[in-house]
């Protein structure tokens, strides 16, 4: 007869080939994390914050005040010929504060803007000191620079988790709905192919992309921001693999029955948007009310993010994050089993 590949291997290979031959898909999996990292890199450059732009009304304010503002380094003054010009710049957000000296020193500002309040404090301090104010107890500043406790250190594992969820659910969901629309699924169901093999191959093919997408984010974080990886890389590997499988399973379940791309898209958003917000990607999930915590902690992305942070930032061992991994694995297994049961082949 003929040499025959194992169907699971053949299906996995097919899925990978399909993917690498789809330039758009490649872009979203590999270029997206790079773009995200670049944006972060810009936002978290290792330098003091930019001076806040403020305006002064020319003529009304003495040169001494303008010089004092410029010398403070905390605000960046620019001159406006008339009060009307200055107010216009304030309204359009070009400056955060407008300084005018009539019979008294006047600050024009929108108090609801945080940068306006900062500008007011900094500008006022500079002006008062220039006019001879002496601070009774001059403070010292102790800045936090310790690696591992900055916002970027908190954020990077979250981005990693977010990316694992996004590529898992989008990557698998759209390919399945497409195959259903084109009746490829129906044709496969008409062969002796085991249905579990088809779904399993979708999950397995994720491994290939995992190395790339996780590698890029981690490498960027370590190279550009010295984000620490305190735990072992092997443990981190186990966590990301489990996370990828979990969201691949959820992706299968999300698209188990959807007949159109629109329906699938809606379902995917329904699954993902709550986790973007609740699962501690950009800020700690501990900020949500206590009553909601049991639910939030049971979400797969919360568990994955907690496990990633525990390994990367606290150097925890596999045993120490067993609870989180159990939650992640349970979501994966249950989703896969349910998807297999309710999957629509035509």
């Amino acid at each position, binding site marked *: 007869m003929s040499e025959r590949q*194992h169907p699971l291997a053949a299906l996995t290979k097919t899925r990978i080939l399909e993917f690498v031959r789809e330039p758009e898909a490649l872009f979203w999996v590999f270029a997206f994390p790079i773009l995200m990292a670049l944006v972060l890199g810009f936002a978290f450059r290792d330098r003091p914050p930019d001076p806040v732009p403020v305006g002064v009304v020319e003529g009304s304010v003495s040169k001494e005040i303008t010089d004092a503002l410029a010398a403070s380094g905390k605000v960046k003054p620019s001159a406006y010929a008339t009060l009307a010009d200055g107010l216009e710049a304030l309204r359009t957000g070009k400056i955060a504060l407008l300084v005018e000296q009539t019979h008294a020193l006047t600050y024009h500002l929108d108090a609801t803007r945080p940068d306006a309040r900062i500008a007011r404090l900094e500008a006022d301090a500079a002006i008062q000191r220039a006019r001879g104010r002496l601070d009774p107890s001059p403070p010292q500043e102790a800045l936090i620079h310790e690696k591992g406790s900055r916002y970027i250190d908190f954020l990077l594992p979250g981005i990693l988790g977010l990316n694992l969820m996004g590529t898992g659910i989008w990557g698998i969901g759209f390919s399945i709905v497409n195959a259903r629309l084109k009746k490829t699924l129906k044709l496969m169901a008409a062969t*002796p192919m085991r249905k579990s093999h088809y779904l399993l191959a979708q999950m397995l093919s994720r491994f290939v992309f995992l190395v790339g997408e996780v590698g890029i984010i981690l490498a960027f974080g370590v190279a550009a921001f010295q984000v620490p990886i305190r735990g072992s890389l092997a443990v981190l590997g186990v966590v990301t693999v489990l996370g990828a499988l979990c969201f691949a399973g959820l992706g299968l379940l999300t698209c188990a029955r959807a007949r159109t791309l629109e329906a699938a898209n809606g379902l995917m958003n329904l699954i993902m948007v709550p986790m973007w917000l609740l699962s501690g990607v950009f800020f700690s999930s501990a900020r949500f009310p206590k009553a909601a915590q049991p639910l939030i902690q049971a979400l797969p992305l919360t568990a994955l993010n907690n496990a990633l942070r525990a390994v990367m930032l606290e150097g925890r061992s596999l045993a120490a994050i067993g609870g989180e991994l159990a939650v992640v694995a349970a979501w994966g297994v249950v989703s896969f089993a349910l998807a297999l049961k309710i999957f629509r082949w035509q």
Partner: protein
Amino acid sequence: MNAAISCTGLKKHYGDVKAVDGLDLEVRAGECFGMLGPNGAGKTTTIEILEGLTKPDAGEVTILGRRWGSHERELRERLGISLQETRLTEKLTVFETLSLFRSFYVRGRNPEQLMADLSLEEKRDARVGKLSGGQRQRLAVACALAGDPEILFLDEPTTGLDPQSRLQLWERIAAYKAAGRTVLLTTHYMEEAERLCDRVAVVDHGKIIAQGSPEDLIAGLHAPHIIEFSTDPAVSDEMLAKIPGVGERRQRDGQWFLAAASLAQAVPALLAALDDAGAKLVSLSTHQATLEDVFISLTGRELRNE
């Protein structure tokens, strides 16, 4: 008689639409059986029920002496299925596609053999997306043959193909049948049914309205010839009814179609009758009756309503 496929009392309703409405069918081992009917007659629903892809509302299906409920895996190994408008993954090559389908079967034909069977060797490394319609359809049939099946199901295998591709595919199907295998196909091309099929079932509104070999069905008209003509001025049905040797009559777009057992008898009689009526002949042609005429005779409608 050894039945490869048989079904009785098949019914499938979609809401108010009776797609299949009490259909009995028996396909013998080693024959090529065609379901002929217009679009929407219920052919695809029927073949997909037989393929085990759609559950019927009522009725029994037996394939190779087995039932879908109890022997699905075994049957899937032994059947080859090509769906209507199959869209294989465009990013894969011909070889990769065939390797994939081969991997699903315990026994089967390897990709090289399949490519040779369907003249696809030159397209071995071409992506499916770059193939012509005819090549794609041949690839779909090659996929259906990957398990070296005992029965091949083809749903409208040549719809939309150019005449040359159609001929090429007919040759391959005939070669498969010549190896003693069974074929069940659906078509709305009477020519396809006449060329390929040992027996044909004419399907309309979810029922079989006639069944038999193409020759028998045509012979059943008792009028193997069709006379087609038009006149100026038009002539009446009563007048034509009096002409000896003329069977069924029908009219479409000013054109008359008369069934006749003998042209030698009917044509001179028709000409004489037209002469008597003072009608001038505008056009006149004759052809051998086909399955199309059988269908029209049975339903009063044409097979293809494109």
